[in-house]
């Protein structure tokens, strides 16, 4: 992403300086909707939204469930369960996204093959699995912090009215923790959306990949990557807006809480 941010700053700088591409002019014609080829390019670039959104949503959904499964052992009184959680979180959190993506896309099929299993991992599922697993270590920590922030007395009260461990989680602890968990979870979702750009390197036809392909044929990196950045900006702003709305809704519901 750094790369994109730098490009953005450079493009602003160039714009201010009045210079542009090699011809000495901005080449906005590549994405000019009034020309036929420009319109075709725009349609192709914007067509990547679907894949980016689908990958991000699926990855976020899996990560939210996987994160919870990973987080629960961390709350246990058994040190064995707690260390299982620690090992998972520390290990997964330490792997950079790109190497993990390569490992899943190129490496995992080899493992399946050696086990005699015919499992194909295409670019789409490779990206979903990598993003979800990589993110689950972070969501697990968010769950743990949220659940641990609920006062011990709540758990004790649940126990004295006869609730089992899972009942007290389900009816007492988790609903209260949710309010605290939601904002950082939303953060993670935005992070997933942005990291999905990495899926372009294994050939998934999402926003970044499509931009790269047009750049190769048109040789107009500045204009196309500028559009790309704005595509992500729109996506993230929509998510932020949705989350604010959700938080407000939840917050006003629970304004009666201590």
């Amino acid at each position, binding site marked *: 992403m750094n790369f994109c941010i730098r490009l953005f700053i450079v493009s602003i700088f160039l714009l201010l300086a009045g210079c542009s591409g090699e011809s000495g002019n901005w080449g906005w014609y590549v994405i000019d909707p009034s020309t036929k080829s420009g319109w075709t390019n725009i349609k192709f670039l914007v067509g990547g939204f679907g894949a980016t959104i689908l990958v991000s949503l699926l990855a976020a959904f899996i990560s939210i469930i996987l994160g919870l499964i990973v987080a629960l052992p961390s709350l246990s009184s058994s040190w064995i369960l707690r260390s299982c959680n620690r090992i998972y979180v520390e290990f997964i959190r330490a792997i950079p996204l790109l190497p993990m993506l390569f490992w899943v896309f190129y490496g995992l099929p080899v493992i399946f093959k050696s086990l005699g299993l015919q499992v194909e991992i295409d670019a789409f599922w490779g990206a979903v699995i990598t993003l979800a697993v990589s993110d689950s270590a972070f969501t697990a920590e968010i769950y743990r912090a949220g659940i641990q922030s609920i*006062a011990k007395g*709540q758990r004790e009260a649940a126990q*004295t009215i006869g*609730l089992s461990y899972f009942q007290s989680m389900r009816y007492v602890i988790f609903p*209260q923790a949710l309010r605290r968990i939601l904002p950082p979870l939303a953060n993670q979702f935005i992070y997933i959306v942005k990291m999905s750009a990495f899926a372009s390197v294994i050939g998934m036809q999402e926003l970044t990949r499509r931009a790269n392909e047009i750049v190769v044929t048109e040789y107009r990196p500045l204009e196309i990557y500028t559009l790309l950045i704005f595509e992500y900006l729109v996506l993230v702003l929509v998510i932020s807006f949705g989350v604010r709305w959700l938080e407000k809704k939840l917050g006003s519901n629970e304004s009666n809480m201590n």
Partner: protein
Amino acid sequence: MGPVIEMREVSKYFGSFKALNSVNLEVSKGEKVVVCGPSGSGKSTLVRCISRLEKHDEGTLEVLGSILTNDEKTSRAIKSKVSMVFQQFNLFPHLSVLDNLILGPTKALGLSRKDALDRAYMFLERVKIPEQADKKPGLLSGGQQQRVAIARALCLEPEIMLFDEPTSALDPEMIAEVLDVILDLAKEGMTMVVVTHEMGFARKAADRVIFMDEGEILEENTPTNFFKKPQTERSKLFLNQVLNY
């Protein structure tokens, strides 16, 4: 009929700190026992052991005919038969008063929602706040919250009620309304162990006063005798500090 709570040589450690030191105690059905003593004397630990919020390390603890070991299964035997009221109320802030009350009966006892609601309204009447049923606990005063907590405990129809300093977190003018509710319960014959500094309550309600210090029971006495002629120097000193301020 034997005692409903029987502790024999019960000890409890927090690390190297001995919170309970060979405690022996018997409580019979319908008896009201007030436990008092300076802070850190082990009174809370005592009731928390009975309610299984803490596990004891040594000795035998028998509640309602079941010997409680630190195996989780044994504490299930007394589940919802022993109820507890906390100093900090510990109401569930995300649920309405009514939902606080029916959670235990519906989920732990398996009552239908309708039966649980009937029961909840009955006990809300009893603690004199039926009009607050639909509010969130955060909107109630401390005294009202504690009465809701008592109603929540009663909704399980327990055989023993434990109170852990039920009025210590309350503003002075709210103490009476909570003590009145507990006193009514006492009159109806509920077996209860009350940890409290309210000596007036001990005088009115208790069959027996227990004085604890440093994890040991130093004195067991009737309230009249306890206040008139305490048997140990430590309890004399304690009473002086509590009563003559």
